[in-house]
């Protein structure tokens, strides 16, 4: 997509978001949109890591948690301004990714994936056990919503504006990045690391930079999540969430920035559809159980039949 066409699409999408945020009354639909936006933001960073640097992070939930907890602790326990806390959360996500990435990005492939998984689980245990700061298993409450002057982002419609506005901005910037010299270098690394190095690309540094960016964007999503819900606890940030983010990227297609958005929407809508359909079938167990099985089977089916994800469908002749 050319830069001009990309920004036209984004502005059109922004107008649509503005209208939806103001026009839709159903908090159910708006809440779903908020979550799609938040997950898409987290998946965006991961899709850069997976699609362009060719690596898998199985600990991405940790950055989401770091964003949420930095924001939560600074505002609820230390009275910081929400935006300052959000900025601190993003910086914390980037710094954490850099510090973790420095040693573990010397690994690659499977071992990097397993090391990132280890990191994600360690962060989870820190959140649960460091109760003096994080509130332990019961978490933190009283996180204020973000506000500009007297305008508070405290209704679902307004949060849709905030989250989707930032997401579209990130998509635009990400698109610029992918089209730039750096983006070409990234695609070269994905194509063949050896070839990329042979033409003078510092592959290790590039991958680390992408991982840091992903840490920052995932932490931003985490921070927005905390200010939206106003309470947080460790349980949503476990290994399962890391896997869900990978599922979103795989479903959407890792080699396209919009793939993350597509995947996030697909996952959220799928879960909602299951929750509303399954009770009608009067099965013995609840929807959550079938949801898990379906996710697993979908992940397998996509890896076998459609490794390029949903974004691939457009490019394939049907």
């Amino acid at each position, binding site marked *: 997509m050319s830069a001009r066409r990309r920004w036209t699409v984004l502005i059109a999408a922004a107008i649509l978001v503005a209208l939806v945020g103001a026009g839709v009354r159903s908090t159910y639909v708006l809440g779903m949109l908020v979550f799609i936006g938040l997950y898409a933001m987290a998946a965006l960073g991961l899709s850069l890591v997976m699609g362009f640097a060719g690596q898998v992070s199985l600990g991405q939930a940790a950055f989401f948690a770091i964003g949420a907890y930095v924001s939560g602790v600074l505002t609820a326990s230390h009275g910081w301004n929400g935006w300052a806390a959000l900025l601190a959360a993003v910086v914390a996500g980037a710094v954490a990714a850099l510090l973790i990435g420095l040693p573990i990005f010397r*690994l690659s492939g499977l071992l990097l994936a397993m090391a990132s998984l280890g990191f994600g689980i360690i962060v989870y245990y820190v959140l649960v056990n460091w109760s003096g700061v994080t509130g332990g298993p019961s978490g933190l409450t009283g996180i204020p919503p973000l506000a500009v002057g007297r305008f508070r982002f405290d209704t679902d419609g307004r949060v849709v504006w905030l989250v989707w506005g930032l997401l579209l901005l990130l998509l635009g910037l990400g698109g610029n990045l992918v089209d730039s010299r750096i983006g070409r270098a990234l695609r070269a690394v994905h194509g063949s690391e050896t070839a990329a190095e042979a033409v003078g690309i510092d592959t290790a540094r590039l991958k680390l930079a992408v991982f840091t960016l992903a840490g920052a964007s995932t932490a931003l999503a985490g921070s927005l999540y905390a200010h939206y819900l106003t309470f947080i606890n460790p349980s949503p940030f476990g290994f399962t969430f890391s896997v869900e983010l990978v599922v979103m990227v795989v479903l959407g297609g890792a080699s396209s920035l919009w793939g993350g958005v597509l995947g996030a929407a697909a996952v959220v809508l799928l879960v909602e559809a299951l929750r509303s359909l399954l009770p009608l079938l009067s099965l013995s*167990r609840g929807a959550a159980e079938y949801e898990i099985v379906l996710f697993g*089977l*979908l*992940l*397998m089916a996509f890896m076998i039949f459609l490794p390029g994800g949903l974004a691939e469908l457009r490019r394939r002749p049907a």
Partner: protein
Amino acid sequence: MTGWAELAQYTASGLVVGGVYALIGLGFVIVYSVTRIINFAQGEFVMLGALLMVSFEQAGLPVAAAVLLTVASVAALGGLLERVAIHPIASAPALAVLILTIGASIAMRGTALIVWGTDPSALPAFSPGPPLHVLGATVVRQGLWVLGVATAVFALLWFFFTRTYAGTAVRACALNARAARLMGIRVDRMFLLAFALSGALGAVAGAVIAPITYATYDMGLMLGLKGFVAATLGGLVSPPGAIVGGFLLGLLESYAAGLVSSGYKDAVAFIVLIVVLLVQMAGWLPGRVAEEA
């Protein structure tokens, strides 16, 4: 106050858990060394082993028959997983196959949740009786079963790998699949065999640990990951390495829980994992981990 009695106690519990980690770690090593795949569903084999044991026991089968049936079923499932899911994309990038096995593990966990529900199921110990006292430590009888069965399995595996034709063929594949193929070994059969073996090993681990920890649908993830850490500690391609790694990890966890803080007990394995991967990467420890992937 940390007396000898407590140290002995931590050592005893560490060894029992370590035996289980070693069994699970061996499953990872066999699959990885033959196929270069990290089978994320390894832990779910353990979970299925434990839950199937409970069901067979409740159906009134004697322990030995229940164990055999459990091991055979999960081994068959391991083979099925390889045929249905792994085989079609065996040439795909390693990370794609890893994600596929994550999908398989989620599907297995979800199916277990539907079949067995969320409540932990208890399994009676293989032989009833009060705990034993060994060198100042109290050991439940099932703990001895764990160590005994693990030792027997190690011996069987050693015999299989060094004294039988099939075992030698598996080792040949692990060393160099192309050369093995040129020697007339059916490499894709070895893939199948490796997955079936790892299923059997997982099932044994699940069956012997169930009377100590209860059996639940979600026990597989943590046990599987710790088995992976054990395998990594031993270099990921060495069966004796995985056994040593398993016991080492069990002891480390047990000492950390007893002497430092029990809240972080489960985090120990993952700190060990990251440290070991980086140290092996730097070439300070034996093991081929760093060359792979």
